[in-house]
């Protein structure tokens, strides 16, 4: 079964073709980072306007690169949420109409399920059960994944997502948009011991996160009397260390609670080199294997949607003709729904 996947939930237009037998055939992506740079954040209306211009050129590229004809597509998967309402609607309206026209089934996919299953596109792929850390600009969540569609939420951020904290700290430090990845680069040359930032909520039991206080700690560091721009790499390194420590502590706690031997890390922040290295090294010491998607599939992409959609379709699920998107959509509700 050849599945076209379409992702438009935020500021990336991603398309991909996944084949249930031969695997991923190809993927195309357009990132709107430059479009939103001027505003220091994603402007929803501009995001929607851009998605609607990109879909067909990207689909043309995808079909050309894979040397496949549109009529070879057996089903269409699209992100139905969570995300920006207007942006989601563009991808959903296009995908659902395209599937209807070809008389093929369509499947509405949960964006976070896409991220969660993205590491299964790699080889070796993790086997079930595993603990999953979804860490991006919009989410910081821990799940216990017993099987496809069986996701138990263990904990999540009560305020800012980790990626959001990275971006906001970067912005406060005067780094160009998007601040998070720039902060991580700056951190490479800094001393992570120079500043002592809190490891929020690690002194209490439980698996929830809170990152908004870390921002404030960065602000104080920037306002201290002997601050100079020479401190910036140290602030960045100390901030990153605090976030990574916090994620690591909670992951260990979750793995222990679930008696799991595998950790899957996905979402935009899973591209962070320090996070990757430390999770792999320090969890190996306690016999835990860590799995990541390739760098290109850490951030939003069509491949994870095509893949998750294909798995759902194979389980007999499909979505009717109504184009419905869910900007707020807990993953647990989605699994109960399907």
């Amino acid at each position, binding site marked *: 079964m050849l599945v076209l996947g379409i992702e438009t939930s935020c500021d990336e237009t991603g398309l991909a073709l996944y084949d249930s037998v031969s695997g991923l055939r190809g993927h195309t992506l357009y990132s709107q980072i430059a479009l939103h740079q001027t*505003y220091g954040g994603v*402007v929803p*209306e*501009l995001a*929607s*306007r851009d998605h*609607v*211009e990109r*879909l*067909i*050129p990207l*689909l*043309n590229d995808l079909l050309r690169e894979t040397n496949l004809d*549109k009529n070879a597509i057996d089903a269409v998967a699209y992100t139905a949420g969570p995300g920006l*309402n*207007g942006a989601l*609607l*563009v*991808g*959903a*309206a*296009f*995908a*659902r*109409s*395209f*599937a*209807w*026209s*070809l*008389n093929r089934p369509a499947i509405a996919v949960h964006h976070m399920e896409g991220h969660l299953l993205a590491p299964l596109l790699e080889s070796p792929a993790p086997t079930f059960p595993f603990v999953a850390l979804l860490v991006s600009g919009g989410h910081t969540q821990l799940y216990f994944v017993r099987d496809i569609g069986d996701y138990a939420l263990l904990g999540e951020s009560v305020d800012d997502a980790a990626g959001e904290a990275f971006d906001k700290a970067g912005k406060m430090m005067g780094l160009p948009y998007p601040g998070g990845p720039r902060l991580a680069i700056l951190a490479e040359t800094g001393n992570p011991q120079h500043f002592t930032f809190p490891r929020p909520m690690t002194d209490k039991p439980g698996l929830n996160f809170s990152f908004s206080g870390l921002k404030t700690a960065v602000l104080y560091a920037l306002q201290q009397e002997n601050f100079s721009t020479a401190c910036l790499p140290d602030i960045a390194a100390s901030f990153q260390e605090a976030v990574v420590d916090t994620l690591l502590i909670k992951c260990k706690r979750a793995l222990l609670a679930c008696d799991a031997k595998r950790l899957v890390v996905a979402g935009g922040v899973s591209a962070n080199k320090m996070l990757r290295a430390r999770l792999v090294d320090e969890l190996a010491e306690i016999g835990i294997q860590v799995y990541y998607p390739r760098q290109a599939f850490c951030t939003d992409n069509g491949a994870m949607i095509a893949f998750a959609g294909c798995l759902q379709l194979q389980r007999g699920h499909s979505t*009717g*003709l*109504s*184009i*419905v*998107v869910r900007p707020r959509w807990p993953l647990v509700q989605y699994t109960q729904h399907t």
Partner: protein
Amino acid sequence: MNILAFDTTGESCSVAIKTAEHCFEKINHEPRKQAERLLPMIDDLLVQANLQRSDLDGLALTHGPGAFTGVRIAIAAAQGIAYALDLPVVTVSTLAALAQGAHRKFGWKQVLSALDARMGEVYWGAYQADDSGLMQSVHSDAIGSPSQVHIVDEPRTGWYGAGSGWGVYLDQLPPVNVSHVLTVEAFDIITLALPLLKSGHSLTAEEIKPVYLRNKVVRS
């Protein structure tokens, strides 16, 4: 020629199919339900018309102006359908389709179409019927305050108003007779699009573009 047309740019979802002999039409007035209703309505109408998807020869739709999200639902759905079925497409102005509806229902030959654009503004355009009964633009569609809307051509009399803008800004718009034509009916899109489809003045799926008119969407 079997033509499918739809409008999702306003308060309603309207779909029509025209075959050589008949015209089939459906309209749903639930606000903000256009995306949910569009494909089921198209699917039902095809069954009524006893047509397969592959029997369609052309697609017509309103490309705006209107609610931004509604405009994009129309454009993205049209892209998906036209791309999959290799259909030629004609897009028409929402304001032209409104004027065409007013002409069909009341025989009016000169129509000022105005849609509420929020923020104290209207989308508006002036249309006059040509000899074959097609409403032609005599003032480019524009966005502006209601006081900017004006009768643009001779004769100065015999103008009528159509569209939701008249419901909101009646006292600020020019003093003309007003109809109760508030929303687009897809049948009128077909009337406007058919000559263009027949003469090959159509677009491919890739060439379909939304028309927002309001392009300053970020406060700076």
